[in-house]
């Protein structure tokens, strides 16, 4: 623990070849760290076999090392009577040390990787081999309730930061032998483990290959945050709409894998990515499946209607109010006119002002400490609601419209989609203010063009609404039919086995 900062070389001299697997080389690389422990052991005083034990304090479980590595090394008779290193290695190979996972390596880089992942290395200098034991014992977060996607009628576990725990959760939910969990390494400095999860014989191999190729092509330093992997995998970074679904609930993750999609789990991120992601998938919430299908269909259909409503309504309102005043019923226009008398700004400016101030409120609410959160929300309502209306800066009807529309945009189950909709709303308002309903049409054409052109891993973004091929539209998109109607997997991702039931 309390060791000098400048450590002198304690062991054999470094060999001329830096890439050789010797303890001297390892000490040069790792010796300066204060949490790396290097220890020299001597077995069998008669023949004087020297082993070096290297582990990282904090990553390796000290109890395992002392109980299951050191004890048998010194108490086992066979090991103590070994003649030379080669025999010792052979004996350890046969299982005389009581740790279940064991690796024999000849490469220094791989040894370094294993040591820095929490393993303990026993290095035999003369044979230039190392034996690695998996003794991971670092602190990890316990499985807790999901923070955002909380549902009453479903399992309440969520992903955690450790990849091994996540894969264990998945294995517990999908017990078939066809479940495949492949491992990749991403990131030059962080060397993060990334797992690809799919079901062999069910998922289309083209998608799996594409995922593997894209992950292998990532050439960056760090893979810690989400942006580093998401931006490199997705098809079009310039589009605000997300093309990869992400979730923190393992049951949603597993359901999607069984449908035929591919899942990606990243070490140190409590998020599971699901690929390919289509727009229809972002509007499906797990609550729909927990409720009766009639109510679930109603809510889901309402979600689709609200998608259109929140996007187009402020722009439509501005367009009709400026250019097509004869479309509004007479009593309504008299009421709006009366509410608007004396107000300073024109309607377009008002609506843009309120939309921007709502965005500011959202952003500020993320940063508020909890103790003053209440006060800020009161100030927000007062400023935007009461005071601004009384000061004749905005009129009450625009507050009403924008408040309704903002609440409608929060109904979307995925937050990225909600953000994208809020951004496109501005574009619609500007177009509507310039050209009236004609402008709304132009903006709508641009929007649909952008969405229809988008693809996610070869699957069109708007499928199954867009592509033909005898796709059943209503099964799980606009409405949720009871489970006995959903006999096939979604055809747009081309699974190898179509039948799901019966």
């Amino acid at each position, binding site marked *: 623990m309390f060791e000098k900062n400048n450590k002198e070389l304690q062991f054999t001299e470094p060999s001329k070849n830096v890439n050789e697997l010797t303890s001297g080389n390892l000490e040069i690389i790792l010796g300066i760290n204060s949490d790396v422990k290097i220890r020299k052991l001597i077995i069998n005083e008669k023949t004087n076999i020297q082993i070096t034990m290297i582990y990282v304090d904090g990553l390796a479980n000290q109890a395992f090392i002392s109980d299951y590595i050191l004890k048998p090394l010194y108490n086992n008779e066979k090991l103590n009577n070994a003649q030379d290193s080669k025999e010792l290695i052979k004996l350890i190979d046969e299982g005389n040390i009581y740790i279940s996972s064991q690796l024999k390596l000849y490469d220094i880089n791989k040894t370094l990787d294993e040591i820095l992942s929490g393993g303990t290395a026993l290095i035999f200098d003369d044979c230039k081999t190392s034996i690695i034991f998996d003794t991971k014992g670092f602190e990890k977060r316990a499985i807790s309730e999901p923070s955002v996607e909380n549902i009453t009628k479903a399992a309440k576990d969520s992903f955690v930061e450790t990849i091994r725990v996540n894969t264990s959760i998945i294995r517990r939910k999908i017990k078939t032998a066809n479940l495949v969990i492949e491992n990749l390494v991403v990131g030059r400095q962080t060397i993060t483990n990334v797992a690809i999860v799919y079901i062999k014989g069910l998922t289309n191999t083209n998608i799996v290959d594409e995922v593997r190729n894209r992950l292998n092509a990532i050439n960056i330093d760090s893979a810690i945050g989400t942006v580093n992997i998401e931006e490199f995998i997705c098809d079009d970074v310039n589009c605000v709409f997300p093309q990869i679904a992400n979730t923190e609930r393992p049951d949603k993750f597993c359901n999607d894998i069984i449908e035929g999609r591919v899942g990606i789990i990243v070490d140190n991120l409590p998020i599971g990515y699901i690929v390919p992601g289509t727009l229809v998938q972002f509007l499906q919430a797990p609550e729909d499946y927990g409720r009766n299908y009639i109510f679930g269909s109603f809510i889901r259909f309402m979600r689709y209607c609200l998608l259109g409503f929140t996007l187009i309504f402020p722009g439509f309102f501005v367009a009709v109010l400026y250019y097509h005043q004869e479309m509004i019923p*007479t009593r309504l*226009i008299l009421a*709006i*006119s009366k509410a*608007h008398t004396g107000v300073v700004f024109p309607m377009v400016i008002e609506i843009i002002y309120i939309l921007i101030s709502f965005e500011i409120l959202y952003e500020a609410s993320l940063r508020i400490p909890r103790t003053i959160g209440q006060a800020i929300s009161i100030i927000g309502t007062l400023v935007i609601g009461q005071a601004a209306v009384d000061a004749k800066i905005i009129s009450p009807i625009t507050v009403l419209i924008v408040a309704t529309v903002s609440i409608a945009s929060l109904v979307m189950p995925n937050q990225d989609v909600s953000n994208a909709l809020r951004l496109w709303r501005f574009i619609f308002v500007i177009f509507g203010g310039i*050209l*009236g309903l*004609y402008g709304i049409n132009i903006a709508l054409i641009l929007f649909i063009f952008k969405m229809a052109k988008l693809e996610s891993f070869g699957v069109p973004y708007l499928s199954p609404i867009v592509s033909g091929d005898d796709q059943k539209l209503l099964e799980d998109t606009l409405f949720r039919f009871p489970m006995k109607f959903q006999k096939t997997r979604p055809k747009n991702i081309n699974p190898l086995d179509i039948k799901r039931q019966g």
Partner: protein
Amino acid sequence: MKKIKIKRKISIVIFSILFIFIFLTGCNYFPKFVEIDDNFIVLALGIDKGIENKDNFRVTLVTKDLRETTDTKQEGGANKGVFVKFESATIFDAIRRIHTIAYKDVFYGHIEFIIIGEELARENINKTLDFIVRNYELRTMMPILIARGITAEEILDSEDEYENFVPNILDELLKNIGGHSISKVVSLKDVCVSFNSEYGDTIIGSIHKKNIQGENSKEITTIELDGYAVFNKFKLIDFLLQNNARGANFINNDINSGIIVIEDATGKKNSLEILEATSKIEPKYINNTFEANISIKVITNIDEIQNEENYFTVELIDEFNNKQKNVVLQEAQSALNFSQQNGVDIFNIGDEIYHKYPLKWDKIKDNWKEIYKQMKININVETKINGTHIIYDPIGVK
């Protein structure tokens, strides 16, 4: 390098398309928009003969007063109207010149009523409606009314004791026509259709100001909807009022509901409510002359009995039926006589003859007015009494 060139080409194409969309739309005065509260939203339009110059038109506009009232006593202030009047040689000129005296932009897209004064209608109504139909901003489904006995300006500019807003009053009057069926809502589109037909004539609803007793036995004036104004081509000739107008409705199949008052054998009056009334016009060609049969079917309920004696026998119902038939026959006959005497074909009998005998119609169509004055038209009425509502015998009868 190729990738950048392709992207540049695509962006140039997109920008040029957007440019064409935005700036070459063909809309006049780009961008033409007016703030909502900078608009006079005109609710009713009145057209009269000019005062200074008899050849001119006088236009009255009514819009609602949307200024805020700080006077809390005056609750009805929200119902006050703002009137703007101008006189000029043509209607469009008068409407445009209003901009010289109005302090806001005038917007005609919400006009709900057009009222035309009687004097102007007696001269020629066609030239007043040309502008309204031609311009794209005014609606064509708005009702037209003729002001009987006074000018349109006096109707629109009236303020009675309750300070009710005139377009609201007219709105309610026209909504409740179905209850009595004395008149009907004639929209601008209907007038255009019937002006376009060469051999038929138009009828338009008429309104009139009336004095009734108000609170504290003061007299207040209110607007009354009382019948039709009958036109011969484009000139107003006369009015059909009250029951005569309902007779015209019987023949034209425009009855929604109404009350028929009959007098029974003892001299008391009872009332029956019309449930359904249909009519059919059948032209016939007998002995080289045209004749027509109008058959009217009426189904009613007994609604009010003012007699106290013992009632309800089968003969009584037959008696009611006969009396009812006479009443309807009389109303329809008076309307028919009126139209035949003046030579105005307001029931579109010429149209029916054209549909049934097109070749013969060709020969006589030039003399249609004379032929119509002498044509023999029979009216058959069939009535049926359906029920007596909740009770059977009147109350208090043993």
